[in-house]
């Protein structure tokens, strides 16, 4: 029995296998899809098999099967055998397209079963057909059982069509079902639509679109729901039939919408709702992307979804920076604006449509993209590095908005020049290797580093704009990395400062690249680091150099760089800085000279005092073959150990002094040892010995001269130190006392010193005598020198005072002229005859001498020299009349002052001297008058004024001194000049000449006021004037003796014009005259020159 069944199965399998190859998937649908299940009713006719005697059997009979309508089974009465052998077949999906399960169950009548007591043997064969499975091989399952069989086949998550075949064997008769086909797609709900998106028409209508998951979708109906509520409580539903788009109207702007779509299959299965799609309407561009060619016009429209925004207020921006002129705009409707632009250059540009918002533009995130096909210049530059890993770093320029990717390909064994010449040809394109991309990928990059390069290959490098479909790209550059190498810096740098003023430098070149190198060297002295000016030397072809120096013993910082000798390439970075070593043959001989500053801080511990040593610069070693590299400060305090500090070449060194005997020795050092001849200093707190007797400082414009002397019988100091503060340095600019202090050491034999440098003249110099065992008592002296600026200021003030004074004189004289012009000469008045106007209260003294004075003016020969002899005597004034001349003698006390003395005194600062103007042709015939008036006062200084007037009017001006005594007496003289012309027959042009000297006391102004106000008389003295002719010196010589005989002397009456009673006295030798008040104070005789 078993063997029989096995045989039947084998035959069945072979039959099915042959049948499968011949069947197409469309054959034999069979069942129905219902409730996500596939159902079928299979009925088979199974005749009984006949067994022959003798053990021979006939071939087993073959039954027939027929699929009936599973939903309405119509059992044929004409075929009772079929009725008794039917199978219910049910298939369904397990899981999410994991397995297809089919169940076949016998449908035999109970009577038949009981009669025969034989159960049918069922075999179910399932074969999966799908494109994916067919490619990897058939996928099948076979299951066997009695009366009921359940079989499962794996679908691997895919939709597939499964071929189902069932064989039924009963009583050695086998029947095979027709081929049944189950589509798993119909056993599940349809997938929700995907790719939800929307478009906007130029009319502003929003078209919402989606896609089915499979192209041959059985979906026939769709439902769309959208909500503006974040809680998704209220949905708007839209039904769509037969198409995958729908216009959505009445959407508002600036609201975030959530949209979902579902679909319905042919079998009325609804899919799940799709993933929500969120969108906010602001502005939409039509088209959102434009591909164009250079020079072509591009028109882009923008739809404002905000109804309150008007297209008439649209503002278009090119690349977010440039506002496109409004002439390029076009209003399509209230919500739609269009712009037309022409892009000339290949590349990538953007357009933004914004809304005018006051002075600014309100914009959105969205923008339209314009791809202009062609090649643009990206200025790609590369720099390679040839080291353990060869790399090349490339940089480029690009549009701010463009997202780019760097692409490159290479060609070995070919020169870049050759490839670039072949640019565009197929040969060139073919010769290049596969295109590679910068590891950074597309983005907003402006640089990229390429690795794993071949230095001797030629690389073609270019940019492509992302989204430009490969048609918007930059011009390619062809680069051989070996030509753009930036080498590594030289290494192993060594530098030595040699005694022969040479800096010797050597270094080692980088190993790669292997081509010849050139070098540049730069160096800077370590001394004075504030002024670090590198000196560059090169190009050098060898990895060493020797540099001649101006001085030895100087350390330098040295750096080197290299580049390719012949051909292109870049300079390497400068190497690490190296400090040169100073070469020495022996240790320094002597230590540096130094001085100290002792600074006591009263607020801190008084027992400790801060001492700073100032080292004289530069520090010399004393031998050309040894250099000083540092200093050693050796301290020794009384009763304490010796200690030392080692420093570099410092200028200052500070330490704490405990007011005890402290000796500091400063030594120079280098690598070979320390100096042996050193200077030391000993600090004592005890009173110091005094050896300096005098110390003086004299400053002139540029130098300061110092001199000093020592007390006798005192030991001679070892040296002197003179210190002072440099006033040129501003103490407020962080200039400490230590930095401002200047000092100089002087030999012990010197007693004076000249320092020539910039001094202010107010420096305080301190002289320190320095002994072997300490310092002596210092002596200070402050140089005093007037500030040149003060002198200049004083001169300016003096000059201005003089100008002011002259101005006052002139103005007052003018005033006086106006005032006195019309006043008649009292001498011509009958009532004034014989009246003495000098003293108002002694009128009786005036009139008796009225006859003695004539109205003859003081006519002197022009250009004559007048000698003024001032004789100050205690006697009263006398007027001496002689026959041929008039001698006015002024005696006032015992003093006799000559004019020469007055002239000498004229150089006094307060003296005023009016120079005599030389006669001009126009005025040569006018009188020239010199007045001399002396006012006695308590002040010893005299004021001399000499004026020469060239006209009568100027005479008035010259007479108008601000002294009432003088001014009061001049009008009379003027009248005399006007009324009495002293004619000279020999020289008629020379009318007269007056020499007048006025001497003012310092209190003349006060006196003037007093006399004006109170009428108190002041003493006005006459000068004795010796008139000489100076026209011709020869004539003078010839007539000298005669002149001596007939000396023309104008003696000035020393009696005051307004003389007080006490002072009025008459010299017994002279005739005393009372001068009228308004009469001229000077009386002359008309002199005819010999």
């Amino acid at each position, binding site marked *: 029995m078993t063997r029989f069944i096995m045989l039947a199965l084998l035959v069945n399998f072979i039959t099915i296998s042959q049948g499968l190859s011949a069947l197409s998937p469309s054959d034999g649908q069979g069942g129905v899809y219902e409730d996500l299940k596939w159902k079928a009713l299979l009925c088979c006719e199974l005749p009984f098999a006949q067994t022959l005697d003798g053990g021979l059997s006939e071939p087993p009979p073959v039954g027939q099967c027929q699929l009936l309508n599973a939903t309405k089974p119509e059992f044929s009465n004409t075929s009772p055998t079929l009725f008794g052998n039917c199978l219910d077949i049910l298939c369904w999906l397990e899981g999410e397209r994991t397995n297809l399960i089919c169940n076949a169950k016998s449908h035999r009548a109970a009577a038949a079963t009981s009669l025969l007591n034989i159960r049918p043997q069922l075999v179910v064969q399932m074969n999966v057909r799908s494109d994916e499975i067919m490619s990897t091989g058939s996928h099948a399952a076979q299951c066997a059982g009695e009366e009921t069989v359940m079989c499962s086949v794996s679908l691997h998550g895919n939709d597939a069509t499964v071929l189902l075949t069932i064989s039924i064997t009963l009583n050695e008769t086998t029947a095979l079902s027709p081929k049944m086909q189950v589509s798993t797609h119909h056993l599940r709900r349809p997938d929700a639509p995907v790719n939800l998106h929307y478009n906007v028409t130029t009319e502003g209508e929003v078209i919402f679109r989606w896609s089915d998951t499979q192209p041959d979708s059985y979906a026939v109906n769709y439902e769309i729901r959208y909500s503006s509520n974040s809680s998704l409580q209220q949905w708007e539903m839209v039904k769509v039939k037969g198409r995958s788009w729908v216009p959505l109207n009445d959407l508002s702007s600036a609201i975030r919408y959530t949209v979902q779509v579902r679909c319905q299959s042919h079998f009325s299965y609804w899919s799940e709702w799709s993933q929500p799609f969120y969108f906010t309407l602001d502005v939409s561009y039509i088209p959102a992307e434009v591909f164009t060619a250079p020079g072509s016009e591009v028109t882009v429209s923008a739809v404002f979804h905000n109804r309150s925004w008007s297209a008439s207020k649209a503002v278009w921006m090119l690349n977010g920076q440039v506002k496109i002129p409004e002439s390029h705009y076009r209003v399509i409707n209230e919500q739609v604006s269009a712009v037309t632009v022409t892009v000339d250059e290949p590349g990538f540009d953007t357009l933004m449509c914004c809304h005018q918002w006051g002075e600014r533009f309100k914009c959105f995130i969205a923008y339209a993209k314009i791809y202009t096909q062609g090649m643009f210049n990206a200025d790609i530059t590369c720099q390679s590095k040839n080291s353990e890993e060869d790399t090349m770093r490339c940089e480029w320029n690009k549009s*701010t908005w463009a*997202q780019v990717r760097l692409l490159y390909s290479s060609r070995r064994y070919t020169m870049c020049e050759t490839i670039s010449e072949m640019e565009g040809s197929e040969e060139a394109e073919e010769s290049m290797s596969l295109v590679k991309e910068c590891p950074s990928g597309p983005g907003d990059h402006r640089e990229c580093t390429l690795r794993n390069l071949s230095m001797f290959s030629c690389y073609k490098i270019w940019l492509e704009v992302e989204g430009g479909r490969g048609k918007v790209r930059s011009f390619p550059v062809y680069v051989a990395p070996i030509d753009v190498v930036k080498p590594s810096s030289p290494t192993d740098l060594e530098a030595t400062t040699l005694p022969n003023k040479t800096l010797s430098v050597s270094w080692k070149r980088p190993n790669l690249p292997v081509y010849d190198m050139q070098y540049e060297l730069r160096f800077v002295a370590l001394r004075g680091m504030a002024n670090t000016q590198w000196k560059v030397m090169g190009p050098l072809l060898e990895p060493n150099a020797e540099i001649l120096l101006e001085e030895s013993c100087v350390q330098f910082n040295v750096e080197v760089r290299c580049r390719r000798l012949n051909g292109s390439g870049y300079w390497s970075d400068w190497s690490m800085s190296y400090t040169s070593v100073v070469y020495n043959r022996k240790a320094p001989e002597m230590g540096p000279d130094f001085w100290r500053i002792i600074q006591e801080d009263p607020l801190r511990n008084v027992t400790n005092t801060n001492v700073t040593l100032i080292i004289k610069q530069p520090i010399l070693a004393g031998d050309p073959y040894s250099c000083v590299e540092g200093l050693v400060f050796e301290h020794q305090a009384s009763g304490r150990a010796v200690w030392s500090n080692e420093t570099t070449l410092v200028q200052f060194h500070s330490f704490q002094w405990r007011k005890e005997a402290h000796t500091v020795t400063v030594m120079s050092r280098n690598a070979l040892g320390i100096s042996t001849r050193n200077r030391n200093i000993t600090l004592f707190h005890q009173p110091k010995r005094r050896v300096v007797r005098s110390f003086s400082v004299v400053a002139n414009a540029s130098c300061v001269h110092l001199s000093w002397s020592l007390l006798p019988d005192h030991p001679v100091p070892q040296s002197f130190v003179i210190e002072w503060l440099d006033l040129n340095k501003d103490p407020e600019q962080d200039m400490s006392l230590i930095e401002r202090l200047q000092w100089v050491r002087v030999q012990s034999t010197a007693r004076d010193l000249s320092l020539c440098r910039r001094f202010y003249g107010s420096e305080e110099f301190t002289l320190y005598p320095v002994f072997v065992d300490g310092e002596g008592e210092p002596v200070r002296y402050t140089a005093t020198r007037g500030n040149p600026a003060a002198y200049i200021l004083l001169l300016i003030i003096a000059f201005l005072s003089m100008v002011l004074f002259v101005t006052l004189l002139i103005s007052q004289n003018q005033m006086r002229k106006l005032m006195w012009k019309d006043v008649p000469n009292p001498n011509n008045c009958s009532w004034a005859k014989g009246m003495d106007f000098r003293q108002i209260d002694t009128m009786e003294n005036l009139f008796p001498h009225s006859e003695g004075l004539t109205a003859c003016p003081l006519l002197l020969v022009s250009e004559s020299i007048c000698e003024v002899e001032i004789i100050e005597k205690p006697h009263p004034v006398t007027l001496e009349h002689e026959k041929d001349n008039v001698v006015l003698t002024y005696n006032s006390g015992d003093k006799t002052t000559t004019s020469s003395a007055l002239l000498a005194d004229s150089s006094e600062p307060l003296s005023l001297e009016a120079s005599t103007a030389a006669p001009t042709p126009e005025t040569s015939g006018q009188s020239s008058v010199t007045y001399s008036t002396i006012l006695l006062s308590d002040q010893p200084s005299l004021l001399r004024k000499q004026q020469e007037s060239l006209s009568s009017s100027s005479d008035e001006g010259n007479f108008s001194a601000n002294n009432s005594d003088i001014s009061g007496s001049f009008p009379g003289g003027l009248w005399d000049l006007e009324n009495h012309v002293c004619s000279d027959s020999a020289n008629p042009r020379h009318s007269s000449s007056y020499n007048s000297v006025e001497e003012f006391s310092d209190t003349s102004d006060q006196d003037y006021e007093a006399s004006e106000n109170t009428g108190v008389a002041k003493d006005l003295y006459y000068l004795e004037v010796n008139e000489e002719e100076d026209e011709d010196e020869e004539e003078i010589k010839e007539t000298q003796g005669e002149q001596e005989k007939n000396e023309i002397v104008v003696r000035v009456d020393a009696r005051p014009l307004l003389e007080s009673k006490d002072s009025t006295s008459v010299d017994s030798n002279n005739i005393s005259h009372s001068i009228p008040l308004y009469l001229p104070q000077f009386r002359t005789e008309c002199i005819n020159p010999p």
Partner: protein
Amino acid sequence: MYFPALLYPCILGMLGLVHAIPVHQDSLKNLVKPQAETIILRIKDHNKLKLSPKIFIDPELYPEVPADKPIQGLGSIVDTLTTFQKILQKLPNGNVSQISTDLFTLLGNLKDRMKSLRCTLKEPANDRSLDAFLENNATHPITLGFLALDRLKQFMQKLIINLDHLKSC
């Protein structure tokens, strides 16, 4: 004999005191402030020439990008910065990458401090609206980056002023 009995609670008290000593906040301030200032400066350089100064993007239109979020402690700061980090990660590579790295480091420091303070760390929210927003605007990375960085800069400035909020969760 009472000494050990007194010593024990004393030691326990000391241990409790040590445990209760709050983490010194100045160190976090000193760490956060320079990081925030660095991000601000990088954003200023990045946004310098992107858009004309006349252009402004209305922040109300894009609520997905945090704007003027209140600072109420470490939790709120981390939430906001996480959103910014998510946005920056969606932007193209380039100069934004460095800012994104800086922001990532800052977030790490703040999260570490939240752990030390035993604050509750929120799981990253599945903000579908933010994802959809980023997806819809992925084609406009320049303006999206400009807007996001500008708001991140404002938040960093606000954070510098409110460094005291780093003390609380």
